[in-house]
């Protein structure tokens, strides 16, 4: 059985709740991906600028939406980034941001398989 990155239980519940608005459901995950991309770029900037407070705030922000939408792998990585930021371990944060980028790409692919190309946000 292949492990999914988006928790099936959360995804299914949300999908059922929004059964009358499938486009809205797709838009919700598209907005999540779009916002995650933006936050990721802000995380890179904060890491480059060695801004620990900004790193923690942005990591927490992304963790929040990831938890609610069932993308727990990203939420866990964000929690790690929060911890490393608190310890001012920018080298570790930098590595984790690389992982976060890869993970976000995988989440996007998974969502694209489930929801089609509409879920992919327009390129920045």
């Amino acid at each position: 059985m292949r492990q999914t990155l988006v928790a099936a239980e959360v995804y299914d519940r949300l999908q059922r709740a929004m059964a009358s608005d499938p486009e809205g459901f797709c838009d919700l995950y598209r907005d999540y991906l779009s916002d995650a991309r933006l936050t990721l770029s802000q995380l890179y900037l904060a890491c480059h600028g060695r801004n620990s407070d900004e790193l923690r705030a942005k990591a927490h922000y992304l963790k929040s939406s990831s938890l609610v939408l069932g993308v727990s792998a990203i939420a866990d990585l964000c929690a790690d980034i929060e911890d490393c930021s608190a310890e001012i371990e920018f080298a570790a944060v930098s590595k984790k941001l690389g992982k976060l980028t890869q993970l976000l790409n995988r989440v996007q692919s998974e969502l694209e398989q489930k929801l089609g190309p509409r879920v992919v946000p327009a390129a920045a």
Partner: protein
Amino acid sequence: MASSSPIRLLIADDHPVVRVGLRNMLLSDDQFQVVAEARDGAEALVLVKKWQPEVLLLDLAMPNMPGMEALRELTSHETQTRTIVLTAKIEKQQILEALQLGARGVLLKDAAVEHLAACIRAVMQGQYWLDGRPVQNLVQVLRELTAQTAPPPRKTYGLTSRELEVVTLITEGCTNKDIATQFGISEETVKRHLTNIFNKLGVGNRLELALFALNHHLLPATA
């Protein structure tokens, strides 16, 4: 008619995706009505005043005014709104603080989609919601939380040994009559003890007393 009217809610979270996700979960159930959404604690306070929702879903980590500060402000207002704290992660000490400030539930965000409706219903029925389930005995939960958060060196705050015994029984949920029976004294005497205890500790009621006792390690370690 009144019993079938939907529960009016306000969602306060700085993340639009979180607000939209929760709103859609709630809108799928005709027992719920989202009357407003706030992006930070300050806006939440304004909207609570304006809309008087029955339930406020309050994120803790928000800009401008964090959720805990908003909760503190809410306790100083005359409001019937019941607050459910919504958070990614929470320490036991923060749970205690939130409950002291009047929160009726704590809902973790990773369980929000699964438990949101049950949590709101439990709170509307007068229960508390902690750890993914409704809580019947708040005092017991508070005792457990307190035991887990700090070592309990016992202080007396000028209370006599009998007053300390009364405090212990109060935190166990005993009525004045129970206490009177247990100590073989009159209810009037129990009331007098309570008045003295309230005056010494600066608390105004039994719940405040129980919280004070738990937070200030006023209870015997084995109680």
